[in-house]
């Protein structure tokens, strides 16, 4: 029996009857392997546990490395949107529109207000969809499967709305460089209005199941805490950082896409534990609903695309009759668009935090270098520090409350 001193950087979870200083016992190595029902995604954690208490944790990632950055050096700019879909696939419109906005920044194109408002509606719907997945999965990990079943019905309705806009459910490839491919159809507006009317009541029902539920609270409070200083040092962004107490939101700090026109609050937590992350995401869903209402009510009239004929496909009728339109169409489809040389960094507030695109272009048809600043990859580094000293079940909850999406982790 060896004596092991457990050092953990964060305050250890207090459990009745267990001493906090030294533990003597035998250490077992537990492989929370790549395929595991509780790890929502493919990543491995080799943990050394003493009974239920975790002594050390070593994550291994890369099991779904698909070489996005190398692939992006081969694809023309409008085909990279389909790759960005697969980054955080629970909220793919945000990735798509973030990339499109990066390219628009590089070419210096200004979007009409209508396009901005349309983009805001789509991005906020995506944010709601992602937060619903995360919160219901926190429920599932504590044993509460009902919320999952109910809220996935609402996600189906969001999928139907995506289908009205772009035709796909999950990997959307929404938007084009220069706007949207078509205006919002009346069917979309009807579905959106109907959903906005009935979703709050159903969401409140889900909220009542978990938020003040004694069993849930006992499970998640003080599970996997992190302080604000540590979180900033580790490069946390998004709901995980806001749960720790720092109100950093890219939509407010570096507003893009007319976010400065909308009024919304930034929910902030205190301890940075799982309960705070859950509550911050719940509240962000409500704030996103607020933004969608404002965008829908104040939607300006105008064009759904900007005047960038070099990048935005001309109407099909013109392609058959006008020579210029034919040439533009050919060049855009073949990827021979005149993207200027230069380098740009643009970031959007993804569902997990600051999703950044660092694009270096040399004037060719494909990027010279494209680097994705993926929030999941950066904040997952802090996971060992967050769970050392806590119980195994808390480690599982911490992992699911951090909303680690494997596609964004490995890229």
């Amino acid at each position: 029996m060896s004596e092991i001193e457990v050092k953990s950087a964060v305050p250890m979870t207090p459990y009745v009857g267990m001493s906090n200083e030294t533990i003597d016992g035998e250490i077992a190595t537990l492989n929370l392997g790549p395929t595991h029902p509780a790890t929502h995604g493919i990543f491995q954690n080799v943990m050394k546990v003493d009974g239920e208490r975790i002594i050390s944790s070593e994550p291994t990632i890369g099991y779904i490395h698909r070489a996005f950055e190398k692939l992006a050096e081969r694809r023309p700019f409008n085909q990279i949107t389909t790759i960005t879909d697969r980054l955080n696939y629970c909220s793919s419109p945000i990735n798509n529109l973030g990339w499109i906005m990066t390219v628009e920044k590089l070419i210096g194109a200004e979007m009409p207000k209508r396009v901005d408002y349309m983009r805001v509606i789509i991005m906020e719907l995506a944010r709601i969809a992602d937060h619903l997945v995360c919160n219901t999965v926190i429920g599932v990990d504590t044993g509460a499967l009902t919320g999952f079943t109910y809220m996935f019905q609402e996600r189906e309705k969001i999928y139907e709305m995506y289908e009205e806009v772009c035709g796909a459910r999950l990997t959307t490839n929404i938007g084009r460089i220069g706007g949207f491919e078509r205006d919002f159809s009346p069917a979309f507006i009807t579905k959106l209005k109907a959903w906005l009317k009935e979703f709050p009541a159903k969401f409140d029902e889900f909220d009542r199941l978990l938020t003040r539920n004694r069993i849930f609270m006992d499970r998640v409070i003080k599970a996997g805490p992190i302080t604000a200083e540590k979180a900033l040092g580790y490069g946390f962004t998004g709901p995980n950082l806001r749960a720790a107490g720092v109100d950093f939101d890219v939509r407010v700090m570096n507003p893009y896409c007319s976010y400065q026109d909308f009024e919304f609050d930034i929910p902030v937590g205190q301890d940075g534990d799982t309960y705070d992350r859950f509550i911050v995401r719940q509240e962000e869903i409500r704030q996103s609903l607020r933004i969608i209402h404002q965008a829908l009510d104040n939607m300006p009239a105008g064009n759904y695309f900007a005047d960038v004929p070099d990048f935005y496909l001309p109407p099909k009728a013109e392609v058959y009759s006008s020579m210029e339109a034919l040439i533009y169409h050919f060049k855009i489809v073949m990827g021979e668009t005149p993207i200027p040389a230069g380098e740009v960094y643009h970031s959007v507030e993804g569902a997990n935090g600051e999703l950044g695109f660092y694009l270096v272009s040399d004037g060719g048809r494909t990027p010279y270098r494209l680097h994705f600043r993926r929030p999941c990859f950066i904040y997952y580094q802090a996971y060992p520090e967050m769970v050392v000293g806590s119980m195994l079940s808390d480690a599982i909850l911490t992992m699911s409350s951090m909303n680690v999406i494997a596609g964004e982790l490995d890229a």
Partner: protein
Amino acid sequence: MVNIAEQPEGFEGQGFFATKLDSAIGLARSYSLWPLPFATSCCGIEFMATMGANYDLARFGSERLSFSPRQADLLMVMGTIAKKMGPVLKQVYDQMAEPKWVMSVGACACSGGIFDTYSVLQGIDTIIPVDVYVPGCPPRPEQIIDGLIKIQELVQNESLRRRNSDEYKKMLESYHIETL
């Protein structure tokens, strides 16, 4: 209105029904396939939607998802399999007990999908034998259910001796899978 499963060919009489053992067991197996959802990426989220209330996979008998290969019949590989993940997939396949079926969901599992890169396995049929391929990126839940129905047809028509036959053993050897 309740749909009862189709009766296999047989001889019916007063209080008895005689059919081949293969058909009876095939019928029973096909309506209680326990899947192992090997969900790696985006197709996994479409699988979660398939398991949800709208496209309910449980009505086809796949109510109990088994994450342990020892207790599963059907390995549903959903999502991209990278080369790093290949040995893990092979091990999970080896740990499943016969009879087992494999369904490859999504373009990435079928053939590598849009990721023709140095790190992605170009199709899981390079390492394990696959029964049904469901294309799509990601396939709609209806397509995943269609894939499951095709697996059910395979199961219903499978001979009980197939897993011990020489042809099957030769196929497993070509994948370097050890047979007992």
